[in-house]
């Protein structure tokens, strides 16, 4: 049963991640009065890339070719750890929430190193900015996780989720603070507006895209897929911490899993609308306002922590 949940979760993440990205793009297009691309567009893009011949810069090292696989692997592993459908994951004992943050950092470091490998101006620019966002977002994310683990007295993500899910409904101002902080981290880490614009074609403003400029074909496909998975994973971390209700736990049994799948889809649908709304309503910040943005996220998370310690709520 536990293994079934585990396999199902990984497969669902792999399959649904591009769909979720397509959904966000669709909502955004609707909100901005544009005609929306098909929901399946991300799949088509990835498929097309897989069939192409890979062109690699002549001075690229093996690290450059290894990085897409490592980044993709890290994201798949992360999907296996995050309790998106059930909390009984045999795999989650391998890594708790702190290790999850470490895993995401590993992916980031490999991506940045690969971006510097060819030695183009845009590549190192992207790497530098990505690391800047990363070192500010990582503490904020950990503070968010700290608040949740203070409430549930553990750092194992499935256990946090389970304990938060089964308690009586209560108001947790600390969680509200951290939810806002988490949303800000999510936006920054996934290269969304207001920190980065995924649709931009202007290299000088790019962060995430600038790192991928030298990639083509299957390597690019894996990177794109990994980016979609990252967004999906972040959304699922958010669900696990702030709206954990409805995941299958030890108490609910196999029926719970049947119930959890449509519920996850519903949560994702709502989250996609919310994300599109935020992206439509805000403007992209200058790169050097991004630290302020993330500092605010960090501050909110720490405030959540203090509120938790003082009010016990």
């Amino acid at each position, binding site marked *: 049963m536990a293994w079934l949940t585990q396999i199902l979760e990984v497969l669902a993440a792999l399959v649904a991640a591009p769909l979720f990205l397509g959904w966000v793009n669709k909502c955004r297009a609707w909100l901005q009065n544009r005609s929306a691309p098909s929901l399946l567009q991300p799949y088509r893009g990835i498929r097309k890339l897989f*069939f192409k*011949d*890979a*062109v*690699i*810069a*002549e*001075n690229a*090292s093996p690290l450059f070719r290894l990085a897409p*696989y*490592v980044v*993709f*692997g890290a994201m*798949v*592993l992360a999907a296996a750890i995050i309790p998106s459908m059930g909390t009984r994951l045999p*795999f989650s004992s*391998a*890594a*708790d929430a*702190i*290790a999850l943050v*470490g895993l995401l*950092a*590993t992916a*980031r*470091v490999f991506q*940045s*190193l690969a971006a*510097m*490998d*060819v*030695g*183009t*101006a*845009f590549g*190192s620019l992207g*790497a*530098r*900015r990505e*690391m*800047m966002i990363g*070192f500010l977002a*990582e*503490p904020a994310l*950990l*503070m968010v996780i*700290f608040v949740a683990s203070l409430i549930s*007295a*553990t*750092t*194992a993500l499935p256990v946090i989720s389970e304990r938060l899910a089964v308690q009586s409904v209560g108001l947790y101002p600390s969680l509200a603070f951290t939810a806002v902080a988490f949303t800000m981290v999510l936006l920054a880490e996934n290269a969304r507006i207001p920190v980065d614009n995924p649709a931009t074609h202007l290299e000088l403003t790019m962060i995430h895209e600038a790192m991928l400029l*030298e990639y*083509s074909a299957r390597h690019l496909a*894996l990177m794109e897929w990994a980016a979609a998975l990252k967004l999906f994973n972040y959304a699922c971390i958010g669900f696990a911490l702030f709206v954990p209700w409805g995941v299958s736990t030890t108490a609910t049994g196999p029926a719970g899993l049947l119930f959890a799948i449509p519920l996850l889809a519903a949560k994702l649908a709502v989250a996609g609308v919310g994300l599109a709304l935020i992206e439509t309503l805000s403007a992209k910040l200058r790169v*050097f306002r991004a*630290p302020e943005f993330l500092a605010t996220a960090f501050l909110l998370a*720490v405030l959540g922590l*203090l509120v938790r*310690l*003082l009010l016990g709520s």
Partner: protein
Amino acid sequence: MILTPLTLCLLLLALWAVIGVAGLARPTSLRYVARTLYPLGALCGIALAAVAAVSITWAPERLVLPFGLPDLPFHVRSDALSSAFLFLLGAAAAGISFFGAGYFRSGEGTAPGLLCLQYHLFLASMGFVLLADDAYGFMVAWESMALTSYFLVTTQHRIPEIRRAGFLYLLIAHLGAIAILLSFGVMQGGSWQFTFDAMRAAQLPSGWAAVAFLLAIFGFGAKAGLVPLHVWLPEAHPAAPSPVSALMSGVMLKTAVYGVLRVTFDLLGEPASWWGLVPLGIGLLTAMYGVVFAAVQTDMKRLLAYSSIENIGILFTGIGLAVVFHGAGMAVLAALALIAVLYHALNHAFMKSLLFLGTGAVLHATGERNLGRLGGLIRRMPWVAWLTLVGALAISGLPPLNGFVSEWLLLQAFLFAHRVPQTFVNMLLPLGAAVVVLAAALAAYVMVKFYGVVFLGQPREAALARAHDPGALEKLGLVWLALGCVLLGLLPAPVVGLLGSVTAQLGVGSLPQGASPWWVLEPLPDRDATYAPLVFLAAIVLVVVLTFQLVGRMFHRRVRRGAPWDCGFVRLDARMQDTAEGFGQPIRRIFQSFFAIEREQPTPFDRAPRYSIVVTDRLWRALYLPLAGLVQRAADAVAWLQQGRIAAYLLYSFVTLVTLLALVL
């Protein structure tokens, strides 16, 4: 003589000294000194590590040596704490000695034979510091450690900057030594017995105990490089030959950590809870200071030196946390924090040695230390590049390597810090955790910069095309250390188990026994927090291999090589890449207040535009220069004593004599 772990350790230390002396037999023969003596020293190191690893769970053992200062024989003692650090010394020294066997060449300052003597005496004195059981023996070993390392730093003594760096190092080392001596003086508690046993037995009033503790923090902090006593580190490390930098950064700094642990948890008995806030606060400041400065360096060895400062900061933070918990009577958490400290010390010894040796290999292959003239070396020196990558990833605290494990343990300890009874403390501690995380994330930034600029991208100088991998012995050294990083990362539970015997023996407490298998790290069974790096690594490798196979099978594996695309720009050259200064720019901007920045920017009309930026340490100007001025003025004031007439000097002696007699009688 009976062979016990203690006598074995002493024998091995003596053997090191003998190897050193043997170097004098044919001081200029590189083949004899480097190819024979250094590998022998490395084998000694392996033996020492093996003995220490076995004896860490044994009961303490003591011995009075038949020699020492006149009438004061040296006491030695080995217990779990010293065994843990002896293991660190032996294991790290083995890798460094292997590397050194291939690295040292003649014609670089000091003759090889003499260098060999200094090097091995340095190793032996560090070992004796760890075994000493009285203040005299400890201080003798401590000072010989400082002296030998001074000579090693000034290997290339013909360069004035290196002499200056060595002098600064010696100065601060002696300031520290005086504080340590005073601390021992306080701790003997009126018994005037300077054995450590007497200090353990002495009942100090709490005020005096605090004084002894603070003196020890100052004294050992000077050796470790705590802010504001860190200034010698970024000067001395680049000046020394790379194996020596590796040894100093990887091992010698840890002897200071050992000293603090010995004084705090063993000699002083029961530390008060508030003491912990001192190393905690200074540690956090040091960690931030070190990592922020590391991010803006342009010399690769200076960058690593600042990164060492950061790691020392994290170690002292952990020590502070352990003291706070210990004082509050929370044994399990105190043990957890202390284990995190010991683990991190071990990790840092491996990763920092590895990185310094990697820079040494680069330095020998290219003759460059400046990041602005390196680049693209992964294609010329694949061995060094991939092995250094292990070290860089490990020190960035990324799973499943070793740096992550100690960070994880420390964060687990921080996470439950809110149970400390003092309100202020339990609110400030989570902020401390935030600073630790920030420092760790910044460390990743620093390492991406370091690795990316040195090994990736295009070579910034034409001469770099001639660079090549080092010889077999150097590779062996690098592989040894990289293997250490990987194994310490993959097998945390057994290591934590062994380190647990240190905390148990110190009376700090021990971790509860969990029911987890050996590959799962579960320090606090009631918290459900587990970490299993082997599973982690297996899964990631599985996914990577599977993806590779599937993509290849389902589609194709065709690859074409072409010119870099770079958005269609055709005349790409190496100067368009980010320089080290450029990569540090966000940090310079965000943490502006840390730095004193001097900038020279060209105007649009400059014919030959020049852009330069010099980032210096504010503390140097705010603290050290005024202090130096003060000392200078004091010296000037005393200078009138120097009359130049014999009669005057005789008068001084006479007055001194009379005063002393009057005082005594």
